[in-house]
C-alpha cells in the first residue's frame, strides 16, 4: 500500500525557519500549520507515491532519526501519514 499526494489538488506552502510550515490546499481551501516532519513527508511524496517503509528510509537522515529507535521513528511516520490523510492532503494509491 502506497501513499501519494491527492492528485487533483494544488497545494502551496511557505516557511520562514524550517521548524514550522504553512500549507494551503487549493481544493479544500484549508490552511494548515505543519511541523517540519509533516512537511518533509509531503515533500517526499512529490516525486512519486511511496509506502511507509520507503518513506521512513528516505526521511530518516533528514529528520535526524538517529535520536530515536527505528520503531519509534516508524511509529511517528505512520502517525503523521494518518494525520495528513485526515487533513485531506494525502491518500492511498
Amino acid at each position, binding site marked *: 500500500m502506497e501513499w501519494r499526494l491527492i492528485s487533483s489538488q494544488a497545494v*502551496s*506552502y*511557505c516557511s520562514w525557519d524550517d*521548524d514550522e*510550515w*504553512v500549507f494551503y490546499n487549493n481544493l479544500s481551501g484549508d*490552511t494548515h500549520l505543519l511541523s517540519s516532519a509533516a512537511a518533509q513527508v509531503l515533500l517526499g511524496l512529490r516525486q512519486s507515491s511511496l509506502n511507509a517503509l520507503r518513506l521512513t528510509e528516505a526521511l530518516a537522515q533528514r529528520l535526524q532519526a538517529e535520536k530515536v529507535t527505528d520503531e519509534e521513528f516508524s511509529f511517528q511516520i505512520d502517525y503523521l501519514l494518518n494525520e495528513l490523510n485526515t487533513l485531506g492532503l494525502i491518500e492511498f494509491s
Partner: protein
Amino acid sequence: MNVSALTPSELKFRLKKAGIYLQTGSFTTHLKTTIPSVAEGIGLLYADYPLVEQDCFADFHISLTRPRNLRRWFKPQVLFLFDGNTIFKPLPLDQAFPMLEWGLNWCVSTHVNHCLMIHAAVVEKGGFAAIMPAPPGSGKSTLCAALVNRGWRLLSDELALIRVSDGKLIPLPRPVSLKNESIEIIRRYEPNAIFSRKVADTIKGTVAHMKAPADSIVRAAEVVQVAWVIFPKYQAGATACLETLPQSRAFMRVADNSFNYSLLGLQGFKAMTNLIDASLCYDFTYSKLDDAIEIFGALRPQASNNHHVYANEL
C-alpha cells in the same frame, strides 16, 4: 469642501434631504438621516473629512431612520438601511451614532474584496505601518488611540486593508471606537482629544468615539508598506513586553483575524505570505500606555534584503 464648511443646520438639512457624499479614505458613502444625534456626531467627528459633489458615485448608500410604527413614540429605535434594505435589527435611538460607525465597518468588511481584510488597528510612523490584530477586549483600540495622540498616523482603528495586487496598506482613518474604562483612560491621556457623547448599554457596554487626527485624514490617500504585525494584549499590572513571534504562527493568527482570507483563496494565501514576509511579528503585553509608546518608538523595520520566506507549490 470639508464637512466643517457646513453650519450645523446646513448639515442637518442636507442629511435630511439629498444626503451627503462623505469621503472616508478611498470610499465614498452616501448618507441620509433625519436623526439629530447622527448629524451632531458627523459634525463633530467628521468635520475634517471631504464632501464629494452631490449625485456622484458612492460605494455605499446608507441611511439611518426611525421605524414607522409604534416605536416612533414608545421606546424609539433606529434602523440602519443599506441600499434601502434593513441589515441589522433595530437599536435604541440613543445608539444611532454608534450604529452608524458599526454599519460603516460592516459596509467595508463585506464588500471590499480586492484587499485582504484583517480585523486590526493600524498606525504608521516613518513610512511604515504596524498592524495590530486582536479580538475585542485586548486593548487594541486603547493602544491605537494613545499612539495616534503621540505622533503616529491613524490608518484604521478596525480594518487593515492590504491591497492584494501589491501588498500595500490602504488607509481608512475613521473615529476610534473606545468602550467602558478606555474612554476615561484616553480622555486623561490626551485631554485635547475630541469625543462623541458616551452612549451606555450598547452590546459593547458604554461606547464613545474619538475624532481621528486631522493630519491622518488629510493623508488618507497615502498607501503604506507594512513593517510590523503586533498582537497587543492589555494585562493589568504587566511590565511592557515585546516578544518575537515565529512568522508561521503569526500567519495563522492573522488569518484567524481576517474577514476574507478564506474567500480570497490562493490570492489570500499569497497576500498573507507576502505580508508576513515583509513584517517583523511580535506578541505585545502592556499595562501602561507610556511604556507602550516608548517600545513602539523603538521599532525598526527589517532590512529589505532580510526577507527569507521559502514558498513553493507541491
